[in-house]
């Protein structure tokens, strides 16, 4: 049976062409015409899988085509692999990162910082013409390599295996050994003992939790950040100045401010102005690291904020949002629920804690930039004690008017697994909101069982 593919409708083209350009780090610009062409001609040929209408992938037969920024984030995802190849050819330094950090120091050192998910996206985007089935097989193959090179017990292995095999030109492995992430230690050890030691490793040591009020801890971490920048400088053969770091901090603060304003606008109305997927892909732009190009993320984010404000003013409801959906707040690292399937079951995702935590943490713009950055990082609400993290989460839950909370963590994500129970218990006790904990099994191979539990929770709400 032939695959059913989604197509962008020509009906929305004229309106889309009136929308803004995307401006990239290197100053280049793509126009809405070029984006439209790519999404309707080149994209479906190169990446038919992302156009496939497939229940388990949560695809719909139509997306929110009247939301131009939704098309633009799709464009940025589809062009990601090619853009990384081009950046590399133009001599850009690329770092593999992990640990949930903000990427200000990498931006300052003119380095593209890629999390495991993006490293995988780069690798898999190199091959064209795959349907979903073939893409999944290919990803499983990468996993097998990771089991061999790294560990069966780590969850987000994507990245290290490509560094080991040497099939992606990553210049430096530069994670934060933050406590939230137990995978970092697997990756760092695998790299230390692996075959591709030419790729430099810098381990940014994040002091133990609950030290944000201790000057020694801030100073210690600031020194680590300096070491990180020095390593990136060695990789690219150029020095990063304090001014560079200030510029990066201001740029990222702008993203963080826009992101929080956008989320506040979204939360300010009872009618969800976008569906869950669009909400998350727009709010996620705030950290400017989602598409390997901080300026491109910023330009889409600016436009998104204008559009959301307009939608809120006019009471526009997001595409495929049901009437009076049950509002879910999702907790935990690196995973989320299948948003469109959960919408079909009558819910909407109104927030997540993970990356949102550092989106809400602005870096002070006066003083010592390394110290300020270290201080802001140590203050991430997500990295605090269970009680502090839960209290901050409750604030977000209240602001977003969530009806229910799901804590989802990967199998093998040891810290999140350990804190999930006390955190949801605290939230339940303080707010009375129903909560549910779900452990995603090894690499998410049991979609159906997971959705069954999520749907039961939605029905319960």
């Amino acid at each position: 049976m032939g695959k059913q593919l989604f197509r962008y409708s020509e009906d929305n083209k004229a309106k889309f062409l009136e929308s803004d350009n995307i401006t990239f780090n290197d100053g280049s610009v793509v126009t809405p015409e070029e984006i439209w062409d790519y999404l309707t001609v080149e994209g479906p040929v190169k990446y038919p899988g992302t156009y496939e209408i497939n229940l388990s992938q949560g695809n719909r037969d139509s997306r929110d085509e009247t939301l131009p920024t939704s098309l633009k984030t799709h464009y940025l995802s589809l062009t990601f692999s090619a853009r990384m190849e081009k950046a590399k050819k133009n001599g850009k330094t690329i770092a593999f990162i992990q640990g949930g950090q903000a990427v200000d120091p990498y931006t300052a050192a003119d380095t593209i910082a890629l999390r495991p998910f993006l490293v995988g996206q780069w690798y898999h985007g190199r091959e064209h013409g795959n349907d979903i089935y073939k893409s999944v097989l290919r990803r499983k193959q990468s996993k097998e390599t990771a089991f061999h090179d790294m560990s069966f017990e780590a969850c987000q292995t994507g990245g290290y295996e490509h560094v080991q095999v040497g099939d992606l030109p990553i210049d430096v492995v530069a994670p934060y050994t933050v406590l939230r992430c137990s995978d970092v230690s697997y990756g760092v050890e695998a790299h230390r003992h692996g075959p591709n030691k030419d790729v430099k490793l810098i381990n940014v040591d994040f002091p133990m939790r609950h030290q944000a009020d201790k000057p020694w801890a801030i100073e210690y971490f600031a020194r680590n950040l300096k070491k990180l920048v020095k390593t990136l400088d060695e990789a690219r053969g150029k020095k990063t100045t304090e001014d560079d770091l200030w510029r990066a901090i201001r740029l990222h603060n702008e993203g963080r401010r826009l992101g929080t304003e956008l989320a506040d606008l979204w939360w300010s109305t009872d009618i969800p102005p976008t569906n869950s997927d669009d909400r998350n892909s727009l709010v996620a732009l705030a950290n400017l690291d989602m598409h390997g190009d901080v300026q491109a993320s910023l330009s889409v984010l600016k436009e998104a904020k204008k559009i959301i404000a307009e939608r809120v003013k006019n009471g526009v409801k997001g595409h495929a949002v049901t009437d009076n959906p049950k509002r879910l707040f999702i907790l935990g690292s690196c995973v989320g629920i299948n948003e469109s399937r959960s919408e079909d079951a009558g819910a909407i995702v109104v927030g997540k804690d993970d990356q949102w935590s550092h989106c809400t943490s602005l870096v002070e713009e006066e003083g010592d930039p390394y110290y300020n950055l270290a201080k802001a990082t140590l203050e991430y609400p997500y990295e605090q004690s269970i009680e502090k993290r839960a209290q901050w989460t409750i604030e977000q839950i209240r602001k977003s008017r969530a009806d229910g909370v799901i804590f989802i963590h990967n199998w093998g994500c040891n810290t999140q697994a350990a804190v999930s129970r006390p955190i949801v218990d605290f939230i339940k006790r303080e707010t009375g909101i129903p909560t549910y904990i779900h452990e995603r099994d090894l690499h998410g191979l049991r979609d159906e069982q997971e959705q069954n539990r999520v749907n039961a929770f939605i029905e319960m709400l």
Partner: protein
Amino acid sequence: MTISGNYFAGVDVGSLAAKSVILKDGEIFATGLVQSGVNSVESGLNALNLALETAGLKKEDLTYIVGTGYGRVSAPYANKAVTEITCHAKGTNYLHPTVRTIIDMGGQDCKAIRIDPDGAVVDFAMNDKCAAGTGRFLEVMAGVFKVKLEDLGSIALSATDTVPMSSTCTVFAESETISLVARGEKPENILNGIHHSIANRIAGLFSRVGIESDVFFSGGVAKNSGMKTAIEQALKVSIVKPEIDPQLIGALGAAVIARNFAKKEGLWV
């Protein structure tokens, strides 16, 4: 034959069995239970057809059908799909309105469900990553002892002792059982230990959601008397005696929900 009344069906396709219940207005009219095959659409239809045949009805006579269980996502014959957690709650409430806590043990998972007086779920927990505490686990153990699955419970109840079973995984438990047999432990005492170890794992689920009387045991494993006794001991409760085959509770709940949907959508007044 003239068909009078309104008929609502629930079809529950699980990993081991497919079940169906037809309600006539408010009463249970017919049921069907078949083994699940690899094709879940076919399994569901077989169970539904069996109930239709017993009732002397055609599919067109049904006002509304709700599908549940793992096969619910591919149930083209159903008007709506609802998870089996909600269905077990509704089905139990329909038969036993005083029940507030349900243990559901099916072929591939085990659930602890708390409900309110209307049969709405207020909390639930499920075993996430292990076959222990499921029908599949007991099936493996029946295979080890070469006895019929339905005889496991009564064999366990004839035990004079309880041999503790420490493995948390079906595969390890199988080899632990084999080594216990080799050490000369009596099969009934080992089986008793197995039932108690499963019951202890189920008790663990209740540490998350709590227990309130009355307590009901649904699902295919609820037919195992040894399991029922072990759970009663582990949870220090007595379990309400089921009015129908406890394996049909999910399908019954789906039929009750079908009736509610039909009412809501103006198909039944």
